[in-house]
């Protein structure tokens, strides 16, 4: 649709209401009394980029939250960690426990008042309001609730937040998650989820921009039975190509693309020598494609390719001296080794999914008619002339080699055509292309006919550049028992290809199930077959419905899942996924998927991504993490427990919706295995200690209740109660919560198995909580009863009494502070200077404050507020008191020591072992043994590498897009600007090539 260049006149658009269907749009434009239908083809989604288009008129239909993409985003839910939920439950339990204690003591009080207190009234009159034992019990209940309230850790919440904030800062500060090229440090955008990073079991990853860089690089080629692209040193050993390897100098070529890099000099030399095969090879690359060139200034060529693969190939040809310069509907102009040559374009036999190849027929400047073809090797090899069989085998070997390195391969071939044969064929082609019936089939037949007996030229290998370290990261995360699912908008082939290249799909896998059913029944059938096949070897298959039921019995059994030794992979298509996500099939999908090592979902919509995440979230009690970079990942990022945004070229939406963001996928490893694990560990240790501490502190009152007539008399000084949690004990545990490390970061990464601790949630669960509270109760018991025994008849060394309440309080309080300090010492694995400072500082502060508050001066000023005058002096100068404190501390700590020692000695955990090695190896440091580079050993060949549907051969030959003098492009709008995100109906001046990036994952 073309409109003259003029201000858009008024018109009217009637269209459907905002919805989340990305693949359809219905509307009508009324303009100048004409009606124009608007459909999906004329719609640009938010975040799309128009290419090859100088200008266009657009009309914004939906904005902001109404856009189809935002409708796909899903709700933003408040995220909380499982530990926090558990914590809330536990706090409720503790509250219940508090009430129980209150009730017990209240009943005790009623009984006491009845039996003892009533008779004691000669010395202790009842208050006027108090005239009956039951009422007294009732009041005592509330008094005890107030006194014992310290067992419900209010300060816990504050401390937890402080620790999380600290962990977030550590993530922000991590230099190893800083990406220098984009000056981007990792960012924790939320402070509430850190410890959950240590419990992740499922990772849902986007592909493009997350696993890959979305850059295609011409990496290697095989020409006439010889490979180019590898670099060898003088001894003939292959040299690993790195950033620093010297690249070929293309300065002979004024039209070169300066960014292009190639490391093998022999290919340039071959070109310079004029090897005919090499020349023909590059000629194919330069002619057989649908790329649009643009030359704004002389020599500044820019190619607009529909797929990055094509762009990479044409660019390679350009640098090697076969510059594709211009095209008209009938001609292609090349600049071959400095000479202009114009080829007459006779026909384009375009690419499609079935053909998996593309050919052009041209008349070269010499007048010969030639067919140039490129395509998937399997397809092309069938159509070669028998004479080239030897070459075919050699090339085939090379292709295996390329594929083994995860490269995307294409085979190239050509054929000389006889003038008369071609003329006759052309006539038939014309007939077919104008036929009304079966046009497609007839054309396909004709194409098939001419693409025979071709001569093989060689093969290309293109690297879909993975981000740095992706394969290693995935391998490492897999070792940590994290399951990685790839959810991509890409085509099946592309997705699989990436799956192979990043080592998620492997040749040694027993089976790769591809689910592509179009109906619910088909999908069910395929899933069931897959499941049976997986379960088959391990379990006897019983036929019929009963089998399914039996399977159901086992489906939640993780032990059973582990017995499946062989590895499987599941690949499911978007439309199949739509069926599989229905309520009746989702269990089957989930079960099957969970039995597989690798799951790849391709061609999924943003909403489906979220649905998949939600499915796992709902049915598996596992922590999920979604990682993505584009607007199409926002929904899954929001749905998953943890969302990670890759801040790349794709704009900010993903980052803005995410909880953590960084620049490279590989940082995920560090985020989870180091920061996540530490966060989890620290938080668990912190919680355990905190509950222990509060119980030990508070329950002393409970024991004392039995000896003071259940009168709600506190054991400690009021000031001690006020300051205990805030001043005396908060900082050491905070330091532990911030700095503790069981093993260092190198070992965390080297032993990914350590991560399983968090997944199994062994460090803090209800059982652990009970252990902590029991420990606390034991401690409080010892803290009360040892001084009780010692003080019952004790006197000072000057004969004056010491069994008074204030001395008793000071003794117990001092014991308590020392015991909890020793305990934090035992719990701390990593004593930094800060820990030392806080622990010793807290003890010092305790004694300073104690003596200050018991001093003469402060009593003289506030006599009624500091009644403990002189107690510290008179008590803590007694040897007997210190002996009591020493005994109490020993008895409190000894059992802990025994249990811990036996546990590490008899049943050492992975952590214990690693800690031991770490300590042992620290003495004879440092052989830095990094994770070995994971070598891909795949022999799988990629299919036709183009990731898109039909090319636009037709468009080129029809010449429609050539009418504008210079085919240029325009950027319709900035990508991914969240504030102005719009859905646009666009009419473009050019070919209207459109990249529905957001729907299909670019």
């Amino acid at each position, binding site marked *: 649709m073309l409109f003259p260049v003029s201000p858009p006149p008024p018109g009217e658009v009637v269209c459907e209401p905002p919805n989340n269907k990305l693949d359809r749009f219905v509307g009508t434009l009324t303009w100048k009394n004409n009606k124009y239908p608007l459909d999906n083809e004329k719609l640009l989604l938010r975040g799309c980029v128009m290419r090859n288009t100088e200008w266009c008129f657009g009309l914004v239909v939906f904005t902001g939250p109404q856009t189809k993409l935002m409708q796909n985003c899903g709700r933003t839910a408040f995220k909380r960690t499982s530990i926090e939920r558990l914590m809330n439950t536990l706090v409720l339990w503790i509250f219940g426990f508090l009430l129980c204690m209150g009730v017990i003591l209240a009943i005790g009080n009623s009984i006491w008042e009845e039996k003892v207190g009533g008779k004691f009234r000669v010395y202790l009159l009842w208050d006027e309001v108090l005239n009956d034992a039951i009422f007294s019990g009732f009041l005592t209940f509330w008094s005890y609730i107030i006194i014992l309230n310290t067992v419900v850790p209010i300060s816990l919440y504050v401390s937890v937040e402080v620790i999380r904030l600290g962990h977030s800062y550590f993530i922000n500060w991590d230099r190893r998650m800083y990406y220098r090229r984009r000056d981007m440090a990792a960012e924790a955008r939320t402070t509430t989820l850190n410890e959950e990073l240590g419990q992740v079991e499922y990772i849902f990853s986007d592909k493009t921009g997350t696993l890959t860089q979305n850059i295609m690089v011409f990496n290697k080629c095989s020409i006439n039975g010889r490979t180019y692209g590898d670099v060898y040193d003088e001894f003939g050993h292959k040299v690993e190509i790195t950033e620093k390897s010297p690249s070929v100098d293309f300065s002979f070529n004024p039209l070169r693309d300066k960014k292009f890099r190639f490391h093998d000099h022999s290919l340039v030399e071959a070109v310079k020598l004029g090897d005919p095969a090499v020349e023909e090879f590059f000629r194919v690359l330069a002619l057989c494609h649908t790329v649009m060139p643009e030359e704004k200034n002389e020599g500044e060529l820019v190619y607009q390719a529909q797929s990055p693969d094509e762009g990479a190939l044409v660019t390679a040809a350009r640098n090697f001296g076969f510059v594709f310069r211009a095209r008209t509907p009938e001609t292609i102009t090349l600049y071959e080794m400095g000479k202009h040559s114009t080829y007459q374009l006779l026909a384009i036999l375009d690419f499609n999914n079935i053909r998996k190849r593309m050919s052009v027929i041209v008349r070269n400047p010499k007048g010969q008619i030639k067919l140039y073809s490129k395509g998937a090797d399997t397809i092309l090899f069938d159509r070669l002339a028998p004479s080239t069989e030897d070459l075919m085998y050699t090339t085939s070997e090379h292709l295996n080699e390329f594929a083994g390195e995860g490269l995307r391969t294409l085979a190239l071939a050509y054929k000389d055509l006889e003038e008369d044969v071609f003329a006759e064929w052309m006539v038939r082609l014309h007939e077919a292309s104008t036929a009304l019936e079966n046009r497609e089939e007839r054309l396909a037949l004709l194409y098939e006919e001419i693409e025979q007996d071709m001569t093989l030229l060689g093969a290309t290998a293109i690297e879909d550049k993975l981000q740095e370290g992706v394969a290693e990261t995935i391998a490492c995360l897999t070792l940590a028992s994290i399951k990685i699912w790839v959810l991509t908008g890409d085509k099946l082939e592309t997705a699989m290809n990436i799956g192979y290249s990043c080592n998620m799909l492997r040749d040694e896998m027993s089976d790769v199930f591809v689910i592509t059913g179009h109906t619910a029944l088909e999908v069910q059938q395929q899933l069931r077959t897959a499941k049976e096949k997986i379960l088959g070897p391990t379990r006897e298959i019983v036929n019929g419905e009963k089998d399914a039921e039996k399977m159901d019995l086992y489906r939640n059994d993780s032990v059973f899942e582990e017995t499946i030794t062989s590895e499987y992979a599941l690949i499911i298509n978007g439309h199949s996924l739509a069926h599989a996500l229905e309520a009746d099939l989702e269990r089957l999908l989930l079960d099957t998927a969970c039995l597989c090592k690798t799951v790849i979902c391709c061609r999924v919509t943003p909403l489906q991504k979220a649905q998949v995440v939600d499915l796992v979230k709902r049915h598996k009690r596992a922590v999920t993490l979604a990682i993505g970079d584009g607007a199409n990942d926002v929904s899954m990022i929001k749905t998953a427990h943890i969302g990670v945004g890759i801040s790349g070229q794709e704009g900010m939406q993903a980052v803005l919706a995410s909880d953590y963001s960084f620049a490279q996928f590989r940082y995920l490893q560090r985020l989870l295995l180091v920061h996540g694990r530490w966060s989890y560990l620290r938080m668990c240790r912190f919680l355990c200690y905190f509950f222990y501490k509060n119980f030990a502190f508070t329950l002393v009152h409970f024991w004392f209740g039995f000896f003071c007539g259940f009168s709600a008399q506190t054991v400690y000084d009021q000031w001690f109660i006020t300051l205990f949690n805030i001043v005396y004990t908060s900082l050491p545990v905070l330091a532990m919560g911030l700095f503790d490390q069981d093993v260092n970061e190198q070992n965390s990464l080297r032993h990914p198995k350590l991560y399983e601790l968090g997944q199994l949630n062994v460090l803090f669960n209800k059982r652990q909580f009970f252990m902590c509270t029991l420990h606390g109760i034991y401690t409080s018991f010892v803290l009360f009863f040892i001084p009780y025994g010692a003080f019952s008849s004790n*006197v000072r*060394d*000057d004969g004056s009494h010491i069994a008074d309440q204030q001395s008793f309080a000071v003794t117990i309080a001092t014991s308590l502070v020392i015991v909890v300090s020793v305990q934090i010492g035992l719990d701390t694995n*990593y004593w930094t200077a800060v820990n030392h400072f806080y622990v010793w500082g807290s003890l010092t502060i305790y004694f300073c404050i104690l003596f200050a508050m018991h001093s003469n001066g402060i009593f003289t000023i506030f006599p009624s507020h500091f009644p403990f005058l002189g107690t510290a002096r008179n008590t803590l100068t007694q040897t*007997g008191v210190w002996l009591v404190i020493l005994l109490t501390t020993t008895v409190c700590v000894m059992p802990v020591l025994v249990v811990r020692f036996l546990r590490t000695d008899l049943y050492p955990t992975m952590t214990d072992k690693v800690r031991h090695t770490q300590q042992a190896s620290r003495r004879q440091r440092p052989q830095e043994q990094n994770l070995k580079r994971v070598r891909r050993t795949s022999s799988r060949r990629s299919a036709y590498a183009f990731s898109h549907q039909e090319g636009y051969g037709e468009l080129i030959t029809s010449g429609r897009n050539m009418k504008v003098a210079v085919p240029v492009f325009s950027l319709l709008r900035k990508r991914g600007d969240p504030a102005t995100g719009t859905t646009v109906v666009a009419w473009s001046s050019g070919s209207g090539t459109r990249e529905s990036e957001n729907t299909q994952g670019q």
Partner: protein
Amino acid sequence: MMASSYSAKEEDGHHSGAPGPGGVNAKSRKPDNTAFKQQRLPAWQPILTAGTVLPAFFIIGLLFIPIGIGLYVTSNNIKEYEIDYTGVDMSSPCFNCSQNYSWNSTKPCTCSVAFSLDQPFESNVFMYYGLSNYYQNHRRYVKSRDDSQLNGNLNSLKDPSKECEPYRTNDGLPIAPCGAIANSLFNDTLELYYNDPNGTKIPIRLVKTGIAWWTDKHVKFRNPVGDGSNLSAVFQGTTKPVNWQKYVYQLDTDPDNNGFINEDLIVWMRTAALPTFRKLYRIIEKQGDATPTLPRGNYTLLITYNYPVRSFEGRKRMILSTISWMGGKNPFLGIAYITVGSVCFFLGVVLLIIHHKYGSRSNNADIAS
């Protein structure tokens, strides 16, 4: 007690050549390379190993057992003599006194208890009174005092704290000292006589000062300062606690032991932690090196029985005791130390056996990575 070693964690290891384009730039967002921010603070990383835990147990054992034995022996060497003079039994001399009790009885009831010491008490002897089943640690009892008043504050003297209720005022006059603690001041008088073999009763001199903490006597408790030196004038306008027979300024004739700074009052005001307690009453000082403080022989304890305890099944005791460096007789601590020490030692042995038999000494070998 723990294996340890100090070491800074190794260098970053990630420095790749020259700093990047942003590296030199001051505005680079590259985080600082400080040990703190990179979590590489040098740290001591203790591990519980057999090499540290087992010796710890043995050391604790070997340390505690001697301490315990020392404490036990010391405690046993302390001489203590205890008489329960509550008068519960018909046969006991104070039975009558305990029966006809009245706070206001003008005629004091006296009774005497005879006892004999088998062994002489050599050094200073401390005389305690002990009460049982007496809840001095009850919350309402503990709070029922006004430290400000006892510190000599004139305002508090005239207007005692609300905490003292219901012993705050009597007949419209403020009570000095107010509150339930003061009101229930132990007011039995105990006198000790040595029955000389020749038949005469020799009174033993009981020192009534020096029985309270110095800080209490000199800082915490002070008499209010009035115009004159006469205490009774200062306490003008206050009344005595309900149960008392005397006013607070009549507690003693010695001005340094009268009023709020009367040491019996001070000792009583320091409330006991547990329902069974003893409080220092008098000190019998050693007279000379030649004779023991309390020689072997018969003694008579003369009690002016004022303090009723039978209503709540309380007991009253008189305790004579010598002391040592660790205080009074207290076998608990010694036994506890011996027990804990033995348990530690025993555990050490058990752990050692367990470690040798089952311990995983091949810790380092089998880390699956």
